[in-house]
C-alpha cells in the first residue's frame, strides 16, 4: 500500500475513533469520556491553527496561547455581559456561540496581524522569542485586568448556546466541537492544496528562491499567520465554553508549548497531525496522570523519542514522509 493511501486510511481511522469512542460513552452514560473527547477535538482545532503557521509556513510561533486566550476572553466577556444584561463598548453581550466565534476570530486575527507584522521581519530564535513576548504581554495584561476577574479568571455561569442543540449536554457539545474540527481540517487541506499553500510551503523550504521567482515571502507568511491565529482563537472560544471558565492560564507560555508538542507528536504539517497529537497528549494526561503526578516526565521522554527517531510524528511513523506531489 502506498504512503498516501496509508495516510488517508489512518486519517479516517482517527476521525472515526474520535467519533465512535464518545458515541459509545454517550450510550454507556460516561460523560467524563465525552468531555475528554471534546477536549481532544478543541485542542486539535487550536493545533490545526498553529499547524498552518508552523507546519506549512515553518513559523515556529511560541505564542499561540495568546490567540487561544483572546478567543477565550471574547467568549467569557460576551457571556458575562449577557448574564448581567450590561453592554461592552456599546454592544450587548451574547450567549450564542456563532456570533461569539465570529468576534473571537476577528479579534484574534487582528492581534495576529499586529504580532505577525512586527515579528515576521525576524526569523529563527528571534521570531520564537518575539511571539513568546507578545503572548506574555497578553498573559500579564489579563492577570491585571480586574474588570474581568484578573488572576482569578472569569467563570461562564451558563454555557453559550448553539442553534438547535443543548450545549449543556456533553454529547451535544461534543458534536459541535467535532463538526468544527472537521470544518477546520477541510479548510487546512484546501489551503495546503491551493496556490496559497504551494507558495507558503515553498517559502518555508527556500525563501530566497520564492523571492527570486516573484513571490514576496512577507505577505504570504503574514496572511498565513493571521489565518492561523484566527483558527486558534476560535478554539479558545470553544475551550472557554467547555470548561466554562477563562483565566490568564490560557495564555501561559506552557499552553503555547503544549500546542507545539501536540503538532510534533502528531506530525508537523500533516493534516491529521493535530488530531493524533491532541489525542496522545490528553490520553497521556488521563492514563499516566492517574498513575503518577510526574506524568509529564514520561510525556517528555516520548517527545524526545519522537524528535530523535520519528521526526514525522505519529502520522509520519505510520504513513512515511509527507507527499507534496
Amino acid at each position, binding site marked *: 500500500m502506498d504512503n498516501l493511501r496509508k495516510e488517508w486510511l489512518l486519517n479516517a481511522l482517527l476521525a472515526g475513533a474520535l467519533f465512535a469512542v464518545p458515541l459509545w460513552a454517550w450510550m454507556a452514560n460516561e460523560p467524563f469520556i465525552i468531555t475528554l473527547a471534546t477536549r481532544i477535538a478543541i485542542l486539535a482545532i487550536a493545533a490545526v491553527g498553529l499547524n498552518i503557521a508552523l507546519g506549512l509556513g515553518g513559523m515556529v510561533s511560541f505564542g499561540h496561547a495568546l490567540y487561544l486566550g483572546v478567543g477565550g476572553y471574547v467568549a467569557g466577556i460576551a457571556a458575562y455581559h449577557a448574564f448581567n444584561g450590561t453592554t461592552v463598548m456599546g454592544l450587548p453581550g451574547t450567549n450564542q456561540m456563532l456570533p461569539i466565534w465570529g468576534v473571537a476570530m476577528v479579534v484574534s486575527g487582528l492581534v495576529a496581524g499586529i504580532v505577525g507584522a512586527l515579528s515576521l521581519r525576524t526569523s529563527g530564535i528571534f521570531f520564537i522569542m518575539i511571539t513568546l513576548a507578545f503572548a506574555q504581554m497578553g498573559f500579564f495584561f489579563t492577570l491585571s485586568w480586574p474588570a474581568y476577574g484578573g488572576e482569578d479568571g472569569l467563570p461562564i455561569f451558563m454555557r453559550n448556546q448553539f442553534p438547535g442543540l443543548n450545549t449543556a449536554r456533553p454529547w451535544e457539545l461534543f458534536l459541535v466541537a467535532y463538526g468544527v474540527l472537521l470544518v477546520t481540517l477541510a479548510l487546512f487541506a*484546501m489551503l495546503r492544496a491551493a496556490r496559497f499553500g504551494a507558495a507558503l510551503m515553498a517559502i518555508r523550504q527556500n525563501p*530566497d*528562491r520564492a*523571492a527570486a521567482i*516573484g513571490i514576496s515571502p512577507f505577505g504570504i507568511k503574514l496572511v498565513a499567520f493571521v489565518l492561523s491565529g484566527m483558527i486558534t482563537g476560535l478554539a479558545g472560544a470553544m475551550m472557554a465554553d467547555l470548561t466554562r471558565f477563562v483565566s490568564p492560564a490560557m495564555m501561559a507560555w506552557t499552553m503555547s508549548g503544549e500546542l507545539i508538542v501536540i503538532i510534533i507528536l502528531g506530525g508537523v504539517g500533516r493534516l491529521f497531525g493535530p488530531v493524533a497529537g491532541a489525542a496522545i497528549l490528553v490520553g497521556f494526561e488521563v492514563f499516566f496522570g492517574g498513575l503518577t503526578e510526574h506524568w509529564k516526565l514520561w510525556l517528555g521522554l516520548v517527545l524526545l523519542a519522537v524528535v530523535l527517531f520519528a521526526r514525522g510524528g505519529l502520522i509520519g511513523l505510520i504513513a512515511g514522509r509527507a507527499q507534496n*506531489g
Partner: protein
Amino acid sequence: MADPVLDLRGLSKSFGALKATDDVSLTLYKGEIHALIGPNGAGKSTLMGLISGKTAPDAGQVMLNGADITTLSVARRARAGLGRSFQVSSLIPDYSALRNVMLALQARQGHSYRFLRPVNHDAPLRDGARALLARVGLAPRASVEAAMLSHGERRLLEIAVALALAPKCFLLDEPMAGLGAEGTARLVTFLRALKQEAPILLIEHDMDAVFQLADRISVLVYGRIIATGSAAEIRANPQVRAVYLGEETA
C-alpha cells in the same frame, strides 16, 4: 545599437573599507549574451546581489527596459522581468521538478493568494510546466523531487524555472558549474537559442563556454570593470591577459 534591456549605471557597494563593487556600468542589449568574467573575489557575487535586489547599492541605478528598479525588492524585480538562476542550485527541495516549474508559472501570473482550487488540478499550470520541462529535456523526471535529482538535472531545472518566468532578461549565475563536458555542450547550444527570447547576462567560470557563447564580455577585477568587448578584443587585451587570462591561456 538596439535598446538596452538591462542597464547598470555607476553601481557601487562597499563593505567597510572593501569596495566590492566600484562604479560598475554595464549594458545588456536585446538579443545578446553578455558574459561577466573575473577571477575569484572580483566581486561577481556582490554585483549579482545588486542586480537581483538582495543587496542595496551605495550609489548607482539598475534600469530594466528604461524603468528604474533600484529600490524594488527581490520579488518585485522578479515580477518586473528579471529571471535569475542561482550559482548553487536553489530549488524547492521537497517539490517535484514539475511542482517547481508550476510554482514559477504561478508566481509569474501573480496569483498566489488563491485559497480554494487545488493547484494540482490546474491544467494550464501543469501543461505549461510540462512543456517547459520537455524543452530542457527533463520531461521524464517531472515527478521526481528536486532533492533527488542529479546535479546536472538540477542545473537544467534551474533553467526551466527561469524560463517559466518569461523574463525580459536572464541573469544566469554560473549555469555550467559542475556540468560535465557533454552537459556543458548541450547547455551552450540551448543558451545560444535562448538569447533570441531574452538577452542573457551570463556569469561563468568556464572560459571555453564564455568564448563560444558571448557576444560581448566584461571583465571584472577588484569590483571594477577593466574591459568590455567582443571575445576577440578581450583575448587580445593586454590588461586582461595580465590580470586574468595570463595563467589560463599561457
